[in-house]
């Protein structure tokens, strides 16, 4: 559980920050998805954007804690 929190919580905080900065600068109506203008409602775009940021940040956190394992743990005999 501790690892889940270490992955999900910092990524949540940073995703909130990224969401704020990104959508301050970019209007969701100006976004294109596979060459087509985004046709979702603004709230949906913001929400999907946030979850997207969260996933990306969480992937980064996950990689960090994965690489952070000490050699002793990796070398454990099977």
């Amino acid at each position: 559980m501790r690892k889940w929190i270490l992955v999900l919580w910092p990524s949540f905080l940073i995703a909130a920050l990224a969401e704020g900065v990104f959508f301050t600068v970019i209007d969701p109506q100006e976004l294109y998805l596979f060459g087509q203008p985004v046709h979702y409602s603004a709230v949906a775009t913001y929400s999907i954007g946030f979850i997207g940021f969260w996933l990306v940040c969480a992937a980064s956190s996950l990689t960090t804690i994965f690489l952070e394992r000490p050699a002793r743990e990796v070398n454990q005999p099977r």
Partner: protein
Amino acid sequence: MKDASPKPAPGKDGAAEREEVLYSPRKKLYVRAVTGVFARWRWALVWLTQIVFYGLPWLTWNNRQAVLFHLTERKFYIFGWVFWPQDVFFLAILLIISAYALFFFTAVAGRLWCGYACPQTVYTEIFMWIEQKIEGDHNKRQKLDQAPMSGRKLAIRSAKYGAWAVVALWTGFTFVAYFSPLSELLHSVATFGFGPWELFWILFYGSFTYLFAGVMREQVCKYMCPYARFQSVMFDPDTLVITYDEARGEPRGTRKKGIDPRTVNKGDCIDCGICVQVCPTGIDIREGLQYECIGCAACIDACDQVMDKMSYPRGLIRYSTENAIKQHWGSKEILGHVMRPRTLLYGAVLALVCVGLLIGLASREPLRVDVIRDRTSLAREVEDGMIENVYRLQVMNMTEAPRAFDFSVSGLDGAKIDGESRIKVGAAATEAVTLRVLVPAESGKPGANELAIDVKAEDDPALKVHEKTTFLFPR
């Protein structure tokens, strides 16, 4: 009074109490309720912050919600102001002010924010109050936890979880009402026709309130809060923190009431353990300053009551500074050390940025014009030896009244606008207009020339903008 000592009770009961919850092995805390000066302060701030939080979305101003961060419209309404994405500068300033205010208050008096105003503290306080009302005091709660499941336990538990859920849902609903107009949300409640995302965010925020304030509590402060980890860099030996006066308290121990502790070779601490029982993070303040201490002062209130009962002077645990405890300063010397380079610096930056914000807000022009040259036709010769340039203007009326604006051009002799030179823009709206400007061919040199476009509100001559652009003559 030994029932809630910080060490887990031995035997199988102790094992049962240790739950592998969320983060690390945690001994569930049965926090004893406390009354006193600082508890009253905390409750005052609970009321204040929550009246503001739950109440603000219901206020109206100019026939709209007074405070609304309208995501769909990309506009932030705060009373008389309407902020646009272009005003992100003010948001940055506000963040700087919040950061420096936090630095300043932390340097002066430690974790004031955590102890009294942080949402984590405030909602935990509310949730614990509900728990106390439904399940009873800390001893009853512990008994109930250990009791086997029964009809009575089920009823009590459902009542508690139900009450928590109501508060959490209401909190989630209020949160969403800051971003999506409350009137529309209320309509959705009546018909239960929430948009999927609105409903998602209400449940999301609601369940996190429930989880953080009901279940995780002190673990959020101990393991999840970044501020708890770096607050110590703002501390110095003159920072007011909650301190146990070791010289006065030790050696601690039980004694008969009414005897002078010095005659039995004891300090003022009677080792009743109440300071530990009331601590929301479960630490023993007598072990010195610890990062888990959120500065709520519950132990001060509790200890003062014990000191009163023992007829000892209050303040065995009190707000004091490292220097003051070492050198036995009184409150006068402590106050004399509040002003020091660190606090003066934080204070000066804070004051400066606040003044900057006020000046910025006062001089903010609620009209913005973006001039973009039309790129498809650079310069065109038209009849009577005139040269035509076309511009696209974005006129943003940031006021809350529909307004008409007049355009005029200057900077080149004989420059004039061909066609419509007036535009109506709705309240807090943007209009795009195409402006055709004609200038006699002999008025400028081939290539780029400076041209100014003035936009003026018809009903308010003070509301005007002077935009510089270029006018091209053919080579």
